[in-house]
């Protein structure tokens, strides 16, 4: 980052100011441990977070992690003993290893706000966005919005096998792999030669015979698992490709980008041919009304259907961020809806949730800038 960050006292004061403003909305202030059990976080994010988080060993509690974000501990706290609906705010340090030389901080403050509510998701989305918009208004940041729910609905609605849909859904957050899978499922690219050879051999031999010929079986993955996947590959090769029409509609959807009203019109057009996205597009429309009711100029609000695809993979609906006009800066604030995450962490229970965080260090830097 080109600018030097203001001193810690100035950043702390900015965090306090933002935190007070959130409390004034009636949100309940909550705390989270800095040292968190690593298990739940690693299970959720895998190597992505292991590379970014400070992991350490506790002699009694096992593998622990310096808090990489607040969302997971706040969701866990709410799922354990939260009343409904609930609005929380928090403030504190988060820790992220930086694997690149440069000025990005590995320890910084976050101030956040989360809403857990079963009713009126469009209103809750608008409330979170409008609140951040109001707090950050003097900084003239550039907002960005998207909706992961529309893309997820489009994939779920494809006329193809459940296995293919599951593979695509798993990689919605990894655009390159998603593209490769879609191209293969749609028959736009040929399967790799090794796959064709395997399918050829499976025409005359059983998976068991091929395994026997390949050598002794080692490791935890069982011969039954290998045989099951071999059979699923045969099934998949017999399944018809995703139609060119549907694949093209998905491409069109991913390319939607512009002011929110135009994006909505474009998505409604696509929904006429891809009816599975109609409910999600309806929610987008409701959200725009709710945002307008809260005083947001939706006519100029940018919307990108692919916004949020390269973030941590828990947002599954509305996504938003606010950007300063500085190259190399991360977003000054970001957030979104994460309904599915509450189910993963809720041990059988779930509740719709939306929220986000602001980085007071960046806010203070912008305020200090001439």
């Amino acid at each position, binding site marked *: 980052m080109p600018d030097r960050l203001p001193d810690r006292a100035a950043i702390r004061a900015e965090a306090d100011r933002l935190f007070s403003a959130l409390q004034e909305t009636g949100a309940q202030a909550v705390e989270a441990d800095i040292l968190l059990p690593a298990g739940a976080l690693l299970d959720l994010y895998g*190597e992505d977070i292991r590379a970014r988080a400070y992991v350490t060993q506790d002699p009694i509690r096992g593998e622990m992690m310096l808090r990489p974000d607040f969302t997971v501990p706040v969701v866990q706290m709410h799922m354990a003993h939260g009343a409904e609906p609930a609005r929380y705010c928090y403030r504190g340090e988060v820790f992220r290893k930086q694997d690149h030389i440069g000025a990005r901080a590995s320890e910084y403050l976050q101030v956040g706000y989360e809403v857990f509510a079963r009713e009126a998701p469009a209103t809750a989305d608008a409330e979170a966005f409008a609140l951040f918009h109001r707090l950050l208004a003097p900084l003239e940041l550039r907002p960005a919005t998207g909706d992961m729910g529309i893309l997820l609905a489009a994939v779920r609605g494809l006329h193809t096998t459940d296995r293919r849909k599951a593979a695509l859904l798993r990689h919605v957050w*990894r655009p390159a792999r998603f593209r490769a899978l879609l191209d293969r499922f749609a028959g736009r690219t040929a399967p790799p030669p090794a796959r064709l050879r395997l399918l050829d051999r499976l025409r005359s031999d059983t998976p068991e015979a091929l395994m026997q010929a390949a050598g002794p079986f080692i490791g935890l*993955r069982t011969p039954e698992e290998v045989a099951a996947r071999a059979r699923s590959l045969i099934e998949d090769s017999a399944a018809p490709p995703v139609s060119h029409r549907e694949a093209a509609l998905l491409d069109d959807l991913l390319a939607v980008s512009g002011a929110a009203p135009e994006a909505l019109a474009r998505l409604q057009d696509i929904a006429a041919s891809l009816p599975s996205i109609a409910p999600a597009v309806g929610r987008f429309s409701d959200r725009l009304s709710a945002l307008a009711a809260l005083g947001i100029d939706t006519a100029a609000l940018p919307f990108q259907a692919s916004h949020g695809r390269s973030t941590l993979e828990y947002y599954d609906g509305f996504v938003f961020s606010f950007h300063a006009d500085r190259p190399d800066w991360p977003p000054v604030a970001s957030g979104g809806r994460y309904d599915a995450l509450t189910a993963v962490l809720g041990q059988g229970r779930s509740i719709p949730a939306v929220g986000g965080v602001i980085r007071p260090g960046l806010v203070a830097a912008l305020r200090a800038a001439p």
Partner: protein
Amino acid sequence: MTLKIGVPSKGRLMDRTFAWFGARGLTMRQSGSEREYSGSIDGLDGAELVLLSASEIPRELSAGRIHLGVTGSDLVRDRLADWDMQVAELAPMGFGQADLIIAVPAAWIDVDTLDDLDAVAAAFRAVHGHRLRIATKYHRLVRDFLAGQGVADYQLVDSLGATEGTVKNLTAEAIADITSTGETLRANHLKTLFDGLVHRSEATLYAARAADWTPAARAALADLARRTGLVPPALP
């Protein structure tokens, strides 16, 4: 201040390094007994030989305690964040070649590509309740490679030796390791993925950007570059 050149302190890597410089008219030799880790270089004024373990050379280059260093490109790229901002590659040296590859059990007839590995990782996690483990000592290289390829639902487990045995010992499901002929892989009933080449490693001569490049060190480097036909790097 002399130009400090870090070279591997033992074995074939040291011999080949000495031979590489020798073929260019610069005689390197270990001083004193074979156990003493210091050496000398004839025919180059103002240069000093520092004998180090090949695995320590990336760190010494990063800290700028040596000006030049010979080590495997796998070690530099794995151990140093933004390696090309910390060191300049002067010359690949034509020996110490080995490939960092991803390998799985040969009996996994359904897995030949990263795409297969990724699909199997998802299914494995659902069945076994934990992520598919890949044993390696090259965490940064392997993680960056798999992230770039969009592979998910795996975890890296640290393996400092006998990595090929981890699958049989049930401490990993796959490995990422250095191989030159593939014989050890075959002996351990493993096979390489078709697109599983993470990095093609080779002994390489590096210059440390953070070293103290005094006029004397620069003069010695210019002399060395002229004698070996190398293009000296742009240094701060």
